[in-house]
């Protein structure tokens, strides 16, 4: 096939990208650097330094980081266990991990709200067992909890993928040369799964940083993340300029975190995703 034809085949995707990725970004940039009357300004972007916005950004970074760390700590051992199982059961377990993703994530968050509420199922269960009630709904704890619940598969799958690609020959060779399990783990398993870990971190950290629906539903309006500030600017205040300005700042944070992660990942071979 000629080069032209091949390019034509990419046409739909290029159109899609132009219409739904590039154009919106251009619009965000336009709004971010203009006032309501259309003149140029830096004020929308610099308004991130308002204490209320900085606070929201700091809280978002903190919760996203916490969520990423918890996901990583949970996923890595899990991926190792999974990797040591029989191939048949591996497929089944992976299927179970993906299963919750068949349901809309909004519904799952709403379900958690029902479960965690003061008179919810979990608390009445604890009550009948004579245990103290848990009181985490409408706190940042609930928000992090649900973020972990939602984004965990995005951490497990790339790590697990990277792990299955480690050839057993390498590990056997290491054993022949007298390496213990700990040495094998740190010298072979960790470096070879680094690309998976990095994809996992990006895929968890970025949506966690930008989320607003989870904090809205499980934070009871008391947890104000930068995503909520932006949502409020667009939906409540009709201030698209401010919303775009803050989105622009958030985009910088997202791109910076991805760049940081990718620079670490480059020398570890191809990424998984």
């Amino acid at each position: 096939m000629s080069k032209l034809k091949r390019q034509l085949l990419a046409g739909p995707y290029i159109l899609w990208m132009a219409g739904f990725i590039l154009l919106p970004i251009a619009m965000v940039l336009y709004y971010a650097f203009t006032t309501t009357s259309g003149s140029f300004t830096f004020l929308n972007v610099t308004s991130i330094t308002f204490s209320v916005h900085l606070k929201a950004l700091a809280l978002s970074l903190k919760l996203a980081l916490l969520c990423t760390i918890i996901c990583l700590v949970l996923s890595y051992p899990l991926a190792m266990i999974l990797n040591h199982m029989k191939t048949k059961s591996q497929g089944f377990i992976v299927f179970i991990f993906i299963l919750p993703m068949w349901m809309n994530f909004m519904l799952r968050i709403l379900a958690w709200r029902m479960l965690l509420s003061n008179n919810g199922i979990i608390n009445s269960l604890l009550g009948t067992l004579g245990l103290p009630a848990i009181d985490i709904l409408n706190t940042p704890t609930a928000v992090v909890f649900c973020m972990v619940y939602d984004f965990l598969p995005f951490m497990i799958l790339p790590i697990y993928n990277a792990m299955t690609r480690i050839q057993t020959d390498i590990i056997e060779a290491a054993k022949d040369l007298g390496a213990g399990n700990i040495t094998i783990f740190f010298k072979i398993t960790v470096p070879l799964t680094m690309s998976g870990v990095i994809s996992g971190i990006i895929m968890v950290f970025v949506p966690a940083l930008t989320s607003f629906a989870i904090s809205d539903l499980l934070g009871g309006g008391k947890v104000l993340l930068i995503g909520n500030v932006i949502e409020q600017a667009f939906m409540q205040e009709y201030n698209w300029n401010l919303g775009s300005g803050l989105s622009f700042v958030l985009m910088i944070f997202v791109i910076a975190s991805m760049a940081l992660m990718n620079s670490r990942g480059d020398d570890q071979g191809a990424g998984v995703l």
Partner: protein
Amino acid sequence: MKKKLLCVLAILMLFCFFSGCGQKNSSNTLIVLNYGKYIDPEILEIFEEETGIKVEYEEYITPENMYTKYKAGAIDYDLICTSDYMIEKLIQENEVSELNYENIPLVENLEQTYFDFSKSFDPENKYTLPYFFGTVGILYNKEIVDESKVNSWDILWDEDYSGQIIMADSVRDSFMVAQKRLGFSLNTTDEAELRAAQKLLIQQKPLVYSYLVDEAQDEIVAENAAMAVVYSGEAGYALEFNDKLAFTVPKEGSNMWIDCWFIPQRAKHTENAEKFLNFLCRKDIAMMNFEYVYYATPNTQVKDALDPKLQENPTIFPPTEILENCEVLKSLDDEATMKYNLYWKEIKSAD
């Protein structure tokens, strides 16, 4: 060859997709925008059956959401229902067109008093048709809350009820509570008064279970919290589900609100909109709708037909002495709106 075909197919599909985004221009439709849970869906079906007009119905949560949706301009709504201060803002912006009352003969079913109330935002009653009205008060659980204290907004700052209080997740409604507690007007733009109200709301935050709008009543019915700031109509609805609940409008006064229908300037199907308004005033339809929404209706035909006990129910039909103690929200200028929004954000981000 196969690949070429695939290529053409892909492009064709994309075009189909895009053309789907275009405006549907069929003439016999009516695009309605309304608050959530604010109309009996059955009456939309009846309207469609009777007139053959297809109703495209959309909902929003807060008046500010509505404003954004409307201003975004993606859809030319034919009929919008929203609250007093937001209508005032839209009238000021020349976004509202005059109603032709000749096409709405059944308007005579609506009580004149409420047109008088509407004059605070629509001085000549040219633009709006009252839909439901009510007050804002405290919906509470009688078994947990001390009824001798609940007649004052102070109870929302009482530490005995820490973690049991639900506040409104809407700028003006939450500020209203603090402003009334301090004895200010709920339309104040005075810096010192606003700061004082904000300080009070920040103080209150650790005691608040959550900030909610539509779900507040559900949480109280489910007994997840002891009291909530809600609209009177929502309270009336909640009382039906749980005997332990009661509603009161605190003595410091509150907000009296009227939700009205209006036809926006950009409406494409004005006649259909007027037909729909007339339909809504019809006794049987208004009755069905009242039974579903359960807010105070200005429709005298409906009110007179109700059980006298219900007519005197102060939750659903606020008595005059309570209404006299209430203020209607006024639209604020841009500067004041920005102030309210910023102060509200500061409350939401406070620890």
